[in-house]
C-alpha cells in the first residue's frame, strides 16, 4: 500500500522478519480481509462470484508454478497434467471409497506431488531446454494415460462426477458457499508460500535459481532441493486440480490439457516470476482476460464483424492476445505486473518528490 515509513526502528530480529513490518500494512491486510470475507460475497452477484472463484483456483495453481519456475528456476510445461493427477485421484477416492474432501484434497495433492517428483528426477541430469521437453513429454504421457486407462478415467468421456464437498454435515453447493470454501485455501496457499520462501528451503530454491554451482558449493544439496521444488509445486497443482474438480462437480481431462499448462505459465510471466503478489496479479489477469475479451467483442465486435464471424474470432483472439502478452512482457518487462505495481508504489511513496 501507499505508506511511508519515517525511518527504520527495528530493534529485534522478530521485527525485522515480520511479514507486515508496518502497522499500516497490517491495517491494510485487515481491510482486505473485511472486503473479501464480508463485503464481496454479500454484495456481488452470483455470476461475478463464479469468476472470483475461478480466480481463486488459479491463484493456488499459479503460486505453485511460481515456486518451481520463479523461485527455483526450473521449468515445467506439464503442470496441467499434475493438476489432472490430483483431480482424478480425488474424484476416484470420493466416488469409490466415499471419502470426504478433507481426505481427498490432500490425497490428490500428495499423489500429484509423487508424480511430479518422478518427473523432476531427470532435472538432476538435465536443465533448461531438456527439462522443458521432459515435462512436455510428461504432460502428453499423463494425458494419454488418463484418457486411455478406464480404471482411472471412469470410462465414457473420461469424466467422473464428484459429490459436493461436505463440511460438518453442511453441503457446499452455492457459489457463495464455494467462495468461502475456496478463499480458505487461497489464504492458506498464500501464507504457506510466503513462509516457505522465508524458510531454509525457500532460500535454497532461490540460491539454486541464481547460481546452481555456487549453491552447491555453499552446501545445498541441489538434487534434493530440486525434487522438493517439484514436489511442493506439484502438490499445489494437485490441490488446484482437486479444487477445480469440486468447483465443476466433475473431473474431466479436457480441463487439464497442455493449453492450461501454458495459461499458467502465462500467469506467472505476466504477473511476475518469483513473486507472490505477481502470481496473484497474473492469475487475476489471465482469468479475466478471456471474459473481458468476450464481453467487449459481444458488445462492440458486431460493429465490425458479423455474428458468425464473431463466434470464430473470440477464441482465436484469446490465443493471440495471450501469446502476444507473453512475448511483450518477456521483452519489455520481464518482471511482470508485479514490477509495474512496485514502480507505481515507489513513485507515490516519495511523491511529490522524485526520490
Amino acid at each position: 500500500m501507499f505508506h511511508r515509513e519515517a525511518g527504520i526502528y527495528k530493534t529485534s530480529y522478530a521485527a525485522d522478519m515480520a511479514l507486515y513490518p508496518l502497522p499500516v500494512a497490517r491495517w491494510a491486510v485487515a481491510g482486505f480481509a473485511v472486503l473479501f470475507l464480508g463485503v464481496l460475497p454479500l454484495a456481488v452477484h452470483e455470476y461475478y462470484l463464479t469468476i472470483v472463484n475461478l480466480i481463486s483456483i488459479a491463484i493456488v495453481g499459479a503460486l505453485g508454478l511460481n515456486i518451481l519456475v520463479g523461485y527455483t528456476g526450473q521449468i515445467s510445461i506439464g503442470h496441467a497434467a499434475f493438476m489432472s493427477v490430483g483431480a482424478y485421484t480425488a474424484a476416484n477416492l470420493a466416488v469409490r471409497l466415499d471419502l470426504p474432501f478433507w481426505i481427498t484434497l490432500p490425497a490428490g495433492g500428495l499423489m500429484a506431488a509423487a508424480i511430479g517428483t518422478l518427473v523432476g528426477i531427470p532435472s538432476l541430469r538435465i536443465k533448461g531446454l531438456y527439462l522443458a521437453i521432459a515435462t512436455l513429454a510428461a504432460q502428453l504421457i499423463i494425458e494419454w494415460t488418463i484418457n486411455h486407462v478406464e480404471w482411472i478415467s471412469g470410462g465414457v468421456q473420461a469424466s467422473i462426477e464428484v459429490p459436493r464437498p461436505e463440511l460438518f454435515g453442511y453441503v457446499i453447493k452455492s457459489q457463495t458457499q464455494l467462495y468461502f470454501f475456496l478463499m480458505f485455501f487461497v489464504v492458506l496457499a498464500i501464507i504457506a508460500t510466503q513462509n516457505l520462501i522465508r524458510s531454509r528451503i525457500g532460500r535454497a530454491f532461490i540460491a539454486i535459481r541464481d547460481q546452481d554451482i555456487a549453491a552447491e558449493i555453499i552446501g545445498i544439496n541441489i538434487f534434493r532441493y530440486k525434487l522438493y521444488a517439484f514436489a511442493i509445486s506439484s502438490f499445489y497443482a494437485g490441490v488446484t486440480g482437486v479444487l477445480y474438480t469440486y468447483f465443476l462437480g466433475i473431473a474431466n481431462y479436457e480441463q487439464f490439457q497442455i493449453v492450461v499448462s501454458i495459461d499458467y505459465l502465462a500467469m506467472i510471466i505476466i504477473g511476475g516470476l518469483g513473486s507472490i503478489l505477481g502470481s496473484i496479479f497474473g492469475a487475476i489477469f489471465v482469468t479475466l482476460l478471456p471474459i473481458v475479451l468476450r464481453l467487449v467483442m459481444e458488445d462492440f465486435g458486431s460493429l465490425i464483424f458479423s455474428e458468425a464471424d464473431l463466434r470464430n474470432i473470440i477464441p482465436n483472439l484469446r490465443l493471440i492476445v495471450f501469446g502476444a502478452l507473453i512475448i511483450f512482457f518477456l521483452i519489455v518487462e520481464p518482471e511482470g505486473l508485479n514490477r509495474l505495481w512496485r514502480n507505481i508504489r515507489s513513485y507515490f511513496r516519495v511523491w511529490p518528490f522524485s526520490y
Partner: protein
Amino acid sequence: MFDWFEWEFTLSLLTNGVLIGLMYALIALGFVLVYKATDAINFAQGEFVMLAAFFGAVMLLSAGAPFWVAVLVTLAGMIAFGFGLERVVLRPLIGRPIVSVIMATIGLAAVLRGVAPLVFGAETRSIVMPVEDAPIIWGPLFISPIQLIGAGVAVMFLAAFTWFFLKSRMGIAMRAVADNQQVAMAMGINVERYFALAWAMAGVVSALGGIVWGSLLGVDVHLALIGLKVFPVVILGGLDSIVGAIVGGLIIGIVENIAAGYLDPVVGGGTKDFAPYVLMIIALMVRPYGIFGKRQIERV
C-alpha cells in the same frame, strides 16, 4: 500362412515408418538449424509448418496459382516471416536466460495458432500435388506417392544442408557463430545477420515441410500438432546434428508405426502418439545429448 502374413505386415509398417520418419526429419531439420546457429529453442516449429501449409493452400485454392508458383510464394513468404520474426521477437531476447526464449516461442506458437484461422479461415483445405493419387504397388508394398515425394524432398534437403554446413563459407561462419559468439564477432562475422539467416532457413525448411505434410494430412490448425513430434526426433538424434535429425526421424517413424501396428489392437488405439514420448523419456534419462549430439550438455 500366419507367419508369412506377419512378415509382410511388418515390412509394410517398416516402409511406411521410413517414409514418415524422413518427413519428420524434414521438420526436425528446421529445429536443428535454429538450435545449431543461435542456441535458441523453437517451440513453434509445428506452427511454422502450419503457417507454410496455409500459405501454400491459399495460393493453390484461392489464387488458383500453378503448383510451382505456390511453392515459390510459400518459400518467399516463410523466408520473410523468418527474418521478421528474428528481428521483432528473438533479437531483443539475446543474452536472456534460456527459459525466456522457450517461453517466447511458446507465446509465438499461441499467436500463430490464433492468427492463422482468422486470416485464412478455419475450414480444412487440401493441397493437391501434381502427382497420381493411386499408391505405387511394389511387391507386397503399397507406397503413397505423396509420402515418397516427401521423403525425397527430405533427403535432398538434408544432404544440401549437410553440404552447406561442411563446405560453404556461410555454413562455416554459422558454425563459428554457434560455437562461440564472441570469438566469431572478433573474427569479423556479423553474428546478428547469421541469426537472422538461421531463422530464415528454418522458414525454408518449414515451407517445404508444410506443403508436404499439408498434402498428406490436410491443412488446418491441427497440422501444428506435428510440431510435438519434433521433440522426440531431435532429442533422440541430438539437438545440433543434421544426421541426428535423419536417424531420429527414422527411429521415431519406425517405432511409431510398429507400435501402432502391434500394440494398438492390444491397448485400444493411440499408441502412435504415445510411444515416441516414452522413447524420448528413456533417451533423456540415458543419453540426453542424443545419438549424434555434442556431449557438451549443461550439467549440475
